């Protein structure tokens, strides 16, 4: 096996003292950066890019990859402990991670997140090692109609699942879609929905602004109202027995989500249009759909933590693939990595795997090593994260508020976004009081801006004929499945009515 030989060489490169040191530092920094709201892997990699000029190019990219990995793990930490998504990729982790923490089972959520991340990363690495060139060609066969079909499927998983109130879910999706369409139109370049003619709306509504508003501020208000300021969070204790039980529970209830997240996340990550955030949201939706107890999701199901965490790690590895093989970044972070590679004299693109074998396999080797380092460092720090939760909510709440504001500002350095975030927080609080699910709105603001241009590009391709979504070999089956999922609840409803009559 030539591949295995190359990989062994690559791992050997990764465990050279300098590289191993860089991996450990990178992972630790990444964990911290990922856990700080507003400081996602994008900012982390951008801030630390200059540092990498001090070491050889191979080591530099290994460092940045380790940082990227660490940030994917770290995102879960604040999602679980504070309810603020540490990075946009960890938004779906708050859906179930936060309820678990509120029930005093934060350690279960964190252990599940760490293990799922590890499995997701490992699965992605193996897929990457074995099928990189093949997957690159799969990514190329996804044109606008295929991407749109996939987005439709993602929406369908959120609508077509039982448990939630479907009209309210649809309302929530529509709200997200409208918010997502604010700003410049991608196809015509014309400004849309510029409310009150305020120029701040021209740049559109940042996803992180909505996510921090809804989950940071909205959640904080909700908790305060529920508890009336009383200390209700159970004091979680860490014991060896408890951790062992958590691990067992995590494996038992999270394996399905982990499996789905690992594979789906990788695949979505490979598509240049998507990336880790849509990947994690889709994995959550699919896992909830296939679960035997979908009604438990959103109330603290470990599967709801495992799926997005496995997916975001897997997708972040997947997103490296189009960058390395096609020279097209699959995510904003990889775009920065791409800039770094160009200055180091490495030309990403179809020739990289042939001409720079040592670099490519060194990088892949470092993915494996980073992944192991990240899970170990993460598990070691869990008691520290849990300790934060022992603080009474009266102290935690202002901390969450400050972190949310700072995080919202850090992402774009624009006060307008901070005000917007506060408004979203208040809006989310009231929507929640009226029992509207908020996750679909968050999903829609992420996927809407991908779905809309691809829909319009597809219809331009076919001169306005919607059959393009059914006749193409890849888009066709995906569209059909999506439509079945969307109309499934309607059929069920009809049958129920008939049997009643």
């Amino acid at each position, binding site marked *: 096996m030539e591949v295995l030989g190359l990989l062994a060489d690559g791992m050997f490169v990764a465990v050279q003292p300098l590289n191993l040191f860089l991996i450990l530092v990178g992972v630790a920094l990444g964990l911290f950066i990922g856990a700080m709201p507003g400081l996602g892997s994008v900012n982390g990699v951008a801030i630390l890019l200059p540092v990498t*000029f001090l070491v050889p190019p191979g080591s530099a990219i290994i460092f940045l990859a380790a940082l990227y990995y660490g940030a994917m793990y770290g995102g879960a930490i604040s999602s679980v402990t504070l309810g603020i998504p540490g990075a946009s990729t960890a938004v779906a982790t708050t859906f179930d991670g936060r309820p678990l923490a509120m029930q005093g089972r934060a350690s279960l959520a964190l252990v599940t997140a760490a293990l799922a991340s590890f499995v997701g990363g490992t699965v992605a690495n193996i897929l990457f090692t074995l099928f990189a060139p093949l997957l690159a060609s799969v990514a190329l066969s996804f044109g*606008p109609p295929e991407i749109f079909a996939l987005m439709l499927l993602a929406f369908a998983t959120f609508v077509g699942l039982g448990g939630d109130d479907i009209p309210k879910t649809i309302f929530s999706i529509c709200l997200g879609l409208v918010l997502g369409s604010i700003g410049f139109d991608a196809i*015509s*370049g014309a400004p849309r929905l510029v409310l009150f003619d305020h120029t701040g709306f*021209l740049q559109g509504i940042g996803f992180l602004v909505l996510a921090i508003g809804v989950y940071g501020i909205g959640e904080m208000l909700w908790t305060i109202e529920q508890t009336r300021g009383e200390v209700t969070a159970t004091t979680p204790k860490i014991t060896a027995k408890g951790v062992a039980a958590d691990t067992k529970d995590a494996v038992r209830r999270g394996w399905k989500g982990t499996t789905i997240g690992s594979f789906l996340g990788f695949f979505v990550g490979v598509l240049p249009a998507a990336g880790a955030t849509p990947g994690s949201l889709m994995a959550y939706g699919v896992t909830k759909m296939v679960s035997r107890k979908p009604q438990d999701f959103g109330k603290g199901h470990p599967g709801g933590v495992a799926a997005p965490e496995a997916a975001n790690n897997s997708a972040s590895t997947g997103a490296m693939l189009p960058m390395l093989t096609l020279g097209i970044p699959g995510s904003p972070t990889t*775009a920065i990595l791409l800039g770094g590679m160009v200055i180091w004299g490495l030309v990403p693109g179809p*020739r990289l795997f042939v001409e720079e074998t040592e670099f490519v396999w060194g990088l892949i080797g470092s993915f494996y090593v980073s992944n192991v380092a990240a899970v170990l460092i993460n598990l070691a720090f869990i008691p520290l994260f849990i300790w934060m939760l022992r603080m009474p909510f009266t102290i935690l709440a202002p901390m969450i508020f400050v972190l949310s504001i700072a995080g919202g500002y850090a992402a774009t350095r624009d006060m307008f976004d901070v005000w917007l975030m506060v408004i979203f927080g208040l809006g989310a609080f009231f929507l929640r009081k009226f029992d509207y699910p908020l996750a679909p709105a968050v999903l829609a603001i992420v996927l809407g801006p991908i779905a809309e241009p691809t829909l319009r*590009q597809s219809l331009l391709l076919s001169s306005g004929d919607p059959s393009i979504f059914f006749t193409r070999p890849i888009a066709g089956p995906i569209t059909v499945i999506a439509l079945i999922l969307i109309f499934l609840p309607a059929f069920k409803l009809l049958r129920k009515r008939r049997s009643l009559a």
Partner: protein
Amino acid sequence: MSITKRNFVGLALAGLVAFSPLSALAQEWKPRKPIDFVIMAGPGGGADQIARFIQSVAEKKDMTTRPLVPNNKGGGSGAEALIHVSGTNDPDYTILVTLNSFFTTPLRQPNLGIDIQTFTPVAMMGVDPFVLWVHKDSGITSFEQWVETVKAADGDYVMGGTGKGQEDSIVIAYMSNAYGLDIKYIPYDGGGAVAKDLAGQQIMATVNNPAEAKGFYEAGDFVPLLAFSDERMPAYPDVPTLKEKGHDFSYYNQRAVVGAPGMSDAAAAYYGDLFTAIYESEEWQGYLTSESLSPLWMDADEQRAYWTTQVENHKALLAAMGE
């Protein structure tokens, strides 16, 4: 306080600094916080690649006391960036990497109220040519053969680009007019996405900058058919130009850095020096060669004159397109 010899010297020096002419002080302007390095395009395309490259050179050679922080604002064909930069409350710390949408976007969207002559010229880093590319599986090897294929497709020939009124669409519109072609044009959000969909044969041809298509060209997937430069490019000696085909048309994308409106002269001078140093660096000169950009160095006055002629040119080009 008794005046010793030493602190007398100190006081005298302080006095010298305090009373030295303002202009001399102004020369000393240096950034004291990170610089907002706005890019008029999304991540991954030609403009973004260049901005990231410039930032990396500045970091690598430690040329700035504070970092350039890339900030992609590609929305609305760069309108988002123009509004952001012209509305900044910190003009000394806001610079913009431009492409030709710097000229076309204010023309196409007059309601934005952008007057580009209020911006501060900093540096012209070079101009990027355009090339017509097809996928090797199409079997097309010459421009003439391509024209025949497009005509035979009768309106079903699909090309991708970065949007109506954008650089590549101007080139495509010129070709369509000159040869009577009927092309279906699909807009994408960046040159990188366009090249990717040509590689996957979702679209049949593109007009991309060499930098965006180079990887696929070197792998043998893309075939260049025609260059829109004044002369044949050294990296593509076998590719004819549109001028050789008897049409007096060439088109380049400007890769220029401009400062926000209202930038102080001292700051403008600082950025002028900084980008001159970057322009003259071995790295940038190497980039110009490897990515087939043409050097086109200009001082501030020449840049303003260039803006005026480019606005007039683009007015005519857009009018010809019916925009």
